[in-house]
C-alpha cells in the first residue's frame, strides 16, 4: 500500500511521541523530523533511521514529496509556519494553540474539514471531552457544557504551565464551536500525586430537552466512546452518564499508549492520536486522488 510522506516540526516530547505513532500508521510515512537546533529529539529520530534537519519548517517545505506536516512547536512559530506550508501546498496539522485553521475533533467534525490545508487540534482536554458534549448535545441539545480536565503534574509541560489561560479559553471556545454547546466552560487541574494519576475528565451538560431521557443519551455517548476508542485505545467511560433534571454528568479516563510518553500522559496521547487519525484520513483522500 502506498503511503503519504509526512514531517514533524518540533522534536520535543509531543513531536517524538507523534513519530512513534506515525511509525505504526498504515498510510503515513515518517519522512522527516525537523528542529531548529541539534537536540535529543533530533538525535533520537536520526537513530531510528528518520531523516532529520535543523532547518525547521524550511526543510519540510523544500521536500515536495512531503504532503502533510505536523506542527508540534508553539503558537508563535506556527503563525510563521502556516503561510509557508500553505504556499508549499502542504496540509498542516497544528498541535499548537495558534489555531490558524479551524478546530478539529476527528470523531465530531473531521468529515467537514478534510479538504482544508490547516487544521488545529484544540487541546488535550478538548479532544477528551468535546466528543461527549457532542454526543449528549446531538440527542438532547446542549445549552451549557462544562468540563474539568485533571492531568498529572508530570505530564504538563512548560508551555501549558506558562499559559493556563490558553487551555481554558481555547477549550471553552471549542466546546461551543465543535461540541455544539451554546455556552462552554473549561477548567484544568494539575495533580502531583505519585504514582501519577491517569488523565480524567468530567463533562457536565445542561441539556435543552431532558425528556429525551437517560437511555438515549447513554446510547449516544456509548457510540461516540467507541468511535474515539478507534483512534485512542485507552479512552474509557469511567462514570456513565447520570442525569439529575436537565443536568447530565459523565467522566472519562484516558490511559496513554505509552509510545514515548508514559501511560499516565493520556492528555498527550489523545491529542497526538487525534492528530494522527486526522492525518490518516487526509492521507486516504490524497491516495484516492492519486496525489502520492
Amino acid at each position, binding site marked *: 500500500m502506498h503511503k503519504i510522506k509526512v514531517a514533524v516540526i518540533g522534536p520535543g516530547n509531543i513531536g517524538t511521541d507523534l513519530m512513534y505513532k506515525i511509525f505504526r500508521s498504515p498510510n503515513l510515512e515518517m519522512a522527516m523530523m525537523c528542529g531548529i537546533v541539534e537536540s535529543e529529539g533530533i538525535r533520537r529520530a536520526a537513530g531510528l533511521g528518520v531523516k532529520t534537519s535543523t532547518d525547521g519548517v524550511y526543510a519540510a517545505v523544500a521536500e515536495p514529496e512531503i504532503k502533510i506536516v505536523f506542527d508540534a512547536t508553539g503558537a508563535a512559530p506556527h503563525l510563521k509556519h502556516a503561510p509557508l506550508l500553505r504556499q508549499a501546498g502542504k496540509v498542516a496539522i497544528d498541535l499548537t494553540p495558534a489555531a490558524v485553521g479551524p478546530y478539529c475533533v476527528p470523531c465530531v467534525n473531521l468529515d467537514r474539514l478534510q479538504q482544508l490545508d490547516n487544521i488545529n487540534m484544540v487541546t488535550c482536554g478538548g479532544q477528551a471531552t468535546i466528543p461527549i458534549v457532542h454526543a449528549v448535545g446531538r440527542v438532547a441539545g446542549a445549552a451549557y457544557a462544562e468540563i474539568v480536565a485533571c492531568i498529572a*503534574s508530570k505530564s504538563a509541560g512548560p508551555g501549558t504551565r506558562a499559559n493556563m*489561560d490558553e487551555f481554558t479559553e481555547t477549550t471553552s471556545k471549542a466546546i461551543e464551536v465543535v461540541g455544539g454547546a451554546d455556552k462552554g466552560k473549561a477548567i484544568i487541574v494539575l*495533580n502531583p500525586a505519585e504514582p501519577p494519576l491517569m488523565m480524567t475528565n468530567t463533562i457536565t451538560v445542561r441539556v435543552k430537552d431532558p425528556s429525551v431521557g437517560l437511555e438515549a443519551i447513554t446510547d449516544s455517548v456509548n457510540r461516540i466512546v467507541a468511535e474515539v476508542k478507534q483512534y485512542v485505545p485507552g479512552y474509557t467511560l469511567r462514570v456513565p452518564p447520570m442525569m439529575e433534571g436537565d443536568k447530565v454528568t459523565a467522566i472519562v479516563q484516558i490511559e496513554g499508549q505509552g509510545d514515548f510518553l508514559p501511560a499516565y500522559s493520556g492528555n498527550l496521547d489523545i491529542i497526538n492520536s487525534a492528530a494522527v487519525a486526522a492525518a490518516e484520513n487526509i492521507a486516504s483522500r490524497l491516495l484516492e486522488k492519486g496525489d502520492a
Partner: protein
Amino acid sequence: MKKQKVHVVDTTLRDGSHAMRHNFGVEQVSVITKGLDRCGISMIELSHGDGLGGASYTYGFSKISEFDLLRAAGEQVGDAILTALLLPGIGTIADLEQAYDCGARAVRVATHITEADVSAQHILAAKHLNMMAVGFLMLSHMSEPKAIAEEAKKMESYGADYINLADSAGHLLPNDVRRRIKAVRDAVSIPVGFHAHNNLAMAMANSLAAVEEGASYIDATLCGLGAGAGNAQVEVLAGVLQMAGFETGLNFYGLMDLAQEVVQPILQRPQIIDSGALIGGYAGVYSSFLLHVYAAAEQFELEPRDILVELGRRHMVGGQEDMIIDVAYQLSQSKSTSR
C-alpha cells in the same frame, strides 16, 4: 520595643462563600465590607469561593455574580484593599481585568503547593494592571518545608508582593506551621502570610504560631465562616493577637458586633467541626469539598466519611470537586457488587 505589625486579611466574602453555598447578596456584601473596612481590616477578599470564574456546576453557581458583588464592595471600601482570589486553570486574566474594573486592587493567585509555576502569567498580569499580587500556595500540608520554600521563591521571582501559605485542609499542627513559615521566610525577602482552617480546632493556634514565626499577614473570617470547619475567627484573632502583643490596628468590639449582628443571622449551617469536617482535616482533604461530599453521600446513599477518606487516599487537590462524584460512584458500585 516596637510591636510587630500584623495585617489581617478578611476572607469572609471569599472562603465564607463556600459555607454560604455562594449565595451572598449585594446588601450583605455592602454591609460586611463597610464594617470590615471601618474595623481596620487591611485586605478584604471577595470572589466565588473557588476564585474568579469559579461559578460552575463543579463548584456551585453563584446567586449573584462575583463581579456585581465586587462592584458593591468597591463602593464601600476606604483604606482596605479589595482583593480577589484567582486559581489558574479556573479563572483567567480576562476575569482579573473585569475584577479590576469592578474595584479590586489586589489579587491572590492560588496554586497547589507544588505547582507555583502556573501562577506566573497571572501574577504578571496583575502587576501590569498595577494591582498588588499575592502568591498563594494551597494545601501546604502536602509538601515539605524545603520544597515549599522553592515554590515560594518562584512566586517571588514572578513579582508577588507576599507569599501566603494555606492550610487548605485544616490538617497542620502548630509545629508544622512554624517549620513551613520559617522555611519560606528564610527563602524569600517579601512578607509571608498564613491561611488557617479549623478542622482540627487548630486555626487560632496555627495563626498564632505563624505570626510568632514572623508571618505578617493572617487570613481570618467573621464567625470563622469558611469551607470545611471554617477559618480562623477574625473577632477572636483580634483579641488573641492583642493579648500576644502584636499590633493589628483592629477594632475588637467592632468586629465582634459585625460577627454577631450581621454574619451570625445569615449562617446557613452552624460553623462547627462536625464529623465530616473533622475527617476532612484528619485525612487532609481540601476543605471546600465538604458540602459537595454531603450532597454526593445523599445522592449515592453513602457515608460521607467514606467518601472523604477515599478522596484523601487518592491525593485529590484543590479544584477536583468533580472527583467527589467519581469516588461516590465507584464506592457505590463496589457496595452493590459486595451485596
